[in-house]
C-alpha cells in the first residue's frame, strides 16, 4: 500500500497554473509532514507551490525524509491534541529524522506552524510550551504580527519591524516559558514574530513565534499558509489595505526559505 499521501489524493488541489516567480525555486523540495489528525497539510503544500517550490508530502510513520531541502510541520490537531498539543506526534519515527537533520551541520530549515510549533516545543527543538488560550476558547481571527527577526531561514524576505497580517486559529496558543528562557530569547533576538494590536491569547512577551539559535528552526502560532492566495487569504494586510480575503502577507515566509536554499 502506498505509504504517502499524494497531492492528488484530494480533489481540491489541482496543478497551479501561475508561473513561479523564480524558476530556480522549483528545484527546492519542501517536505510537508502529515500526522494522524494533521489538518493544514494540503494548505501548506499549496503555499509552497504558490511560492514557487516543490512540495513533497511526508508521512509521519516513514523514516525517510526523501531528500527534502526543508520541512514544514503543519497545523491541525495531531492525535486530537488529546493529551497536550503535539505531545504524541513528537514520538513519530519521522520526527527523529527531522530532529537530527535540524541539528546537523546542514541545519535543515524546519518551520512549525501552530500544531507544528507545538510539536517542535514538545520535541525540545524550541524552548517553552503552549497552554490553553487565556480566554479558554478556540480563537479564529486575522492577526497582526511584527517581524522581529528577519534573519531566520523563514523570514529573510521581510523587513525587520515590518507588520504582517495572517489568520490565527487555535485553542492552545498561549506561549509560556520560564523567565530565564524568556530573557534568553529576548537577549538573543530569538523572538521572530510578536503579536501587535492586541495579544490574542496571553502569550508571554506577546510572543507569536520563535527561532532556534541558528535560525533554521522556526515555530509560529498563526497560519501564514492561509495568507498566500488572493481571494482566499486574510481580510487585511499589514500595509493597511482592505479587500475581502486578499491578504497574502504570509507568502514571503515560504519564499524566504526557498530563496535561502537557492543561494
Amino acid at each position: 500500500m502506498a505509504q504517502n499521501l499524494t497531492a492528488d489524493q484530494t480533489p481540491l488541489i489541482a496543478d497551479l497554473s501561475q508561473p513561479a516567480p523564480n524558476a530556480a525555486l522549483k528545484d527546492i523540495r519542501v517536505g510537508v509532514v502529515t500526522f494522524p489528525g494533521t489538518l493544514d497539510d494540503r494548505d501548506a503544500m499549496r503555499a509552497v507551490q504558490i511560492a514557487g517550490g516543490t512540495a513533497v508530502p511526508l508521512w509521519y510513520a516513514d523514516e525517510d525524509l526523501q531528500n527534502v531541502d526543508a520541512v514544514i510541520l503543519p497545523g491541525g490537531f495531531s492525535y486530537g491534541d488529546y493529551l497536550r498539543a503535539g505531545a504524541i506526534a513528537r514520538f513519530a519515527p519521522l520526527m527523529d529524522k527531522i530532529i537530527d537533520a535540524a541539528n546537523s551541520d546542514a541545519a535543515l530549515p524546519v518551520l512549525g506552524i501552530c500544531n507544528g510549533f507545538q510539536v517542535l516545543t514538545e520535541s525540545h527543538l524550541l524552548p517553552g510550551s503552549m497552554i490553553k488560550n487565556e480566554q479558554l476558547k478556540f480563537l479564529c481571527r486575522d492577526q497582526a504580527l511584527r517581524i522581529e527577526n528577519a534573519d531566520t531561514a523563514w523570514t529573510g524576505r521581510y523587513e525587520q519591524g515590518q507588520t504582517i497580517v495572517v489568520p490565527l486559529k487555535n485553542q492552545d496558543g498561549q506561549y509560556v516559558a520560564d523567565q530565564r528562557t524568556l530573557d534568553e530569547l529576548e537577549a538573543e533576538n530569538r523572538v521572530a514574530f510578536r503579536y501587535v494590536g492586541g495579544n490574542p491569547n496571553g502569550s508571554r512577551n506577546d510572543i507569536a513565534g520563535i527561532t532556534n539559535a541558528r535560525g533554521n528552526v522556526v515555530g509560529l502560532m498563526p497560519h501564514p499558509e492561509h495568507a498566500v492566495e488572493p481571494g482566499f487569504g486574510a481580510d487585511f494586510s499589514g500595509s493597511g489595505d482592505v479587500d475581502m480575503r486578499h491578504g497574502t502577507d504570509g507568502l514571503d515566509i515560504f519564499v524566504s526559505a526557498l530563496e535561502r536554499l537557492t543561494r
Partner: protein
Amino acid sequence: MSETHFNLDTVEHAAATPNTELPWAELGLTESEFDRVKEILGRRPTAAELAMYSVMWSEHCSYKSTKVHLRQFGDKVTEEMRKDLMVGIGENAGVTDIGDGWAVTFKIESHNHPSFVEPYQGAATGVGGIVRDIISMGARPVAVMDPLRFGAIDHPDTQRVVHGVVAGVGGYGNSLGLPNIGGEVEFDPCYQGNPLVNALAVGVMRHEDIRLANASGTGNKVVLFGARTGGDGIGGASVLASESFDDSKPSKRPAVQVGDPFAEKVLIECCLELFKSSLVEGIQDLGAAGISCATSELASNGDGGMRVDLTKVLLRDPTLTPGEILMSESQERMMAVVTPEKVEVFEAVMAKWDVEYSWIGEVTDTGRLIIDYQGEVIVDVDPRTVAHDGPVYERPYARPDSQDQLQANHFTGSPEDASRPSGAELRQAVLELMASPNLCSKDWVTSQYDRYVQGNTAMAMPDDAGVIRVDQETGLGVALSTDCNGRYTRLDPYAGAQLALAQAYRNVTTAGARPAAVSDCLNFGSPEDPDIMWQFAEAVRGLSDGCQELGVPVTGGNVSLYNQTGGVAINPTPVVALLGVLDDVARRTPSGWREDGQAIYLLGETADELDGSEWARVRGHLGGQPPAVDLKQERILGDMLVNMSRDGMIDAAHDVSEGGLAATLSEMALRFGVGARIGLGEVADRDGVDTFTLLFSESQGRTVVAVPRSEEVRFKDMCTVRNYPFARIGVVDAESGALDVQGEFSVDLEALREAHSATLPKYFG
C-alpha cells in the same frame, strides 16, 4: 465472557415461546406496531429483532408521521429541477451536478435533544454525524454550517447551553479540518428547553466517485470499521435487561454519546483512500439505530440478502447484549461491502491509518437479513420490512382556532407600537436594534470556528453566504446559506416556510451564486398534536410549492419532532439550506461596500410590514401576518444579482431581511468599516411609507447594492428591462466614518460597532 451470559433469544426459541412478554412499549412501539411485527415475522420477534424494529420504526428513523407530507418534495419536481440532480431524496445525502465533472453533496440534520442534555457532546456528535453522511456518499467533506437556536439570552440556563454548543460545534468541526462557513444564532424563549442544534455538511466529488449505501454481489464481505461499539445512546438501565440471563443488574448504558473527532478525521482520510482505490462496493455510515440501520438499509437497498455474525463486532463494553449491540449509537463507525479479492488491500489501508475493523458477514442471495450470535440465529427478517416498510401514519391535523386571533393581532396599532421613533430618535432606535440579541454581531460565536482550513473559503461569516472553491483551476465553487424565521412560520407556516426559502435564495444569489438545490431541517413540536401537525403540513406544502416555483429541488433533509417542553412547542422552525453554484468564486459579492464614491441602490419596494419583525420582537410583540412573499419577484431579483455579479456591475450586495433596511445598511457599513451618506426621502415617497417604516419593515424581495460609477448605466438598464423597482439611495463615503441618513440622523461607525459587537460578550464572557 462466558457463553451462557445471555439467555439468547434465538429465532428458534422465539417460535417455540410465542407468549413470552416483551418490552415493546418501553422500546417505544405501539401495540398495533408490535402486532404488525408479529404479522410480518409470522411469530413473535426475538429480543434482537424487537430492538431492530423498535429503533428503525421510531419517528426519528422511519418518518412515520411525516412521510405522507414529505412525498410532495418528490412529487413536485419538474424537468427543470431534475436536470442537475444526480442523487435525490432517500440516500444518505442528495447529490447535485455542478459541472465540469464535479458533484456536490450536502445535507442538514438536527441534534436538538442531545444538545440540551449535554450541550458540548450533543453538538459535537451532531457535526460528526452529518459529516459521516457526506463521506458515505463518496465525497470529501469541505465545509460545515451550524444553524443554532437558544432560549432567552438572559435566562440562567442559556449560558450553559450556548457555551457548550458553540464549543462542541467548534471542537468537533475544527478538529476535522472543516471550515465553518455560516449558520444562524437566534435567541427566543420558545427554545428554552429545546435548543435547536442543526448541522450542515457539504462535500465534493467527481461524478464517478459517487457511492451508494447498498450491499450487492453475493459473496462480498461486510466490514465494520472505525470506533468500537459501546453502550452509547442506548440510555439508562437498558430496557433490554430482559435479554440478560444472569441475575446481576444490567450495567449502566451511557445515554450520552461522546465524540472522538480525531477518530473521525482519521476515518475521513481512510475512507477517501478506500474510494480512491475503489475498494468498496457500498458504504453506509452508522448513525441513529447503529448496526440495525446500517445492515438493514444496506441489505434492503442491495439485490440479495446479508448474513452477519454479531459476535464479530469489536466491543468497547463486553457486557452488551446482542440487542444492545444492534441499537448502539457509538460514533465514528462505518460499514462497507468489499469484494473478496480486495480484502487484503482494504486491510492495508486500515493498517496505514490505524483503524480497527472486523469482518462481520457477507452478502447472500437469500433476500433475508440473518444475524447470528454465538452460533445461533437471533435475527431472520426481510430487511425491507425493517428499513423501508415501517408504519406510515396520517396524523390528524387542523388549523387551530387561535391562529385567527394571532393573525389579527397586528403590530401596527398595538400597545407595543405606542411610540414610533422619528428624526433624530432613529439613531437610538438603530443602535438598540443592532445591539439586540438577534441582530447583534455573532462574532463571539463565529470566531470560535476555523473558517480558513483547506484554503478554499472564498467567503464566510459575516457575509450572506459561505462560498467554497471546488476546482482550483477553474474557480468553480458553491455558495450556501441556511435560513429560517420561526416567528414568521408561527404566524403563517405556509408563508413562513416560503419566507425561509426566499431568504436563503436571496442570500445565495446576493453572493452571486446560481441556486441549485435545497436541503431542509424541519424542527417542530409533537406530531400527535393536530395543531402542530397542521403547522408541519402547511410548512411542507409551502416549501415544496416554493421550491417548484423557484426551480430548485429538495435533495434531502431531516425532520425533528417533539421539540416541546411542558406541552408548549417551539415556533415551527423549518430551516432551509440552499446551495448555489459559482462558475468562478472570485466573482462572489461581499456584503459590504469599500470604494469611496460608489452609488448605493435599493432594489425592491417597502410596505408597512412590521408584523413578526425584529422591531416588533424588541418591543415584545408577536402577531399579525408575516411579510408577503412573492417568489416570482424573488426569482427575478436573484437572476439579476447573479448576472450583475458575473458582469461586474456591483461591488457589494447585502439582502434586506431581519431588521429591515436599518440592519442591512448598518451591516454593510460595518463589514469593512466604511461609511455612507444615505437619503431616504424619495424612496419613502415612492413607496408611500415614512422613514421609520422604510428602515424597520421587513418587506421581502429587497437587496442593497453598491455600484461602481462606471456601471450605473448598465445597472439601471438591467433593472429597467426586468421591470424591477430600484432607487438610488446614497453614496459610499469613506471619509465620514459614519452612516449618515440625511435629514434624519447620523451614527458614527465606532458607536455602531460598539453597540453591535458588545452584546454576546456581555452575556457570555
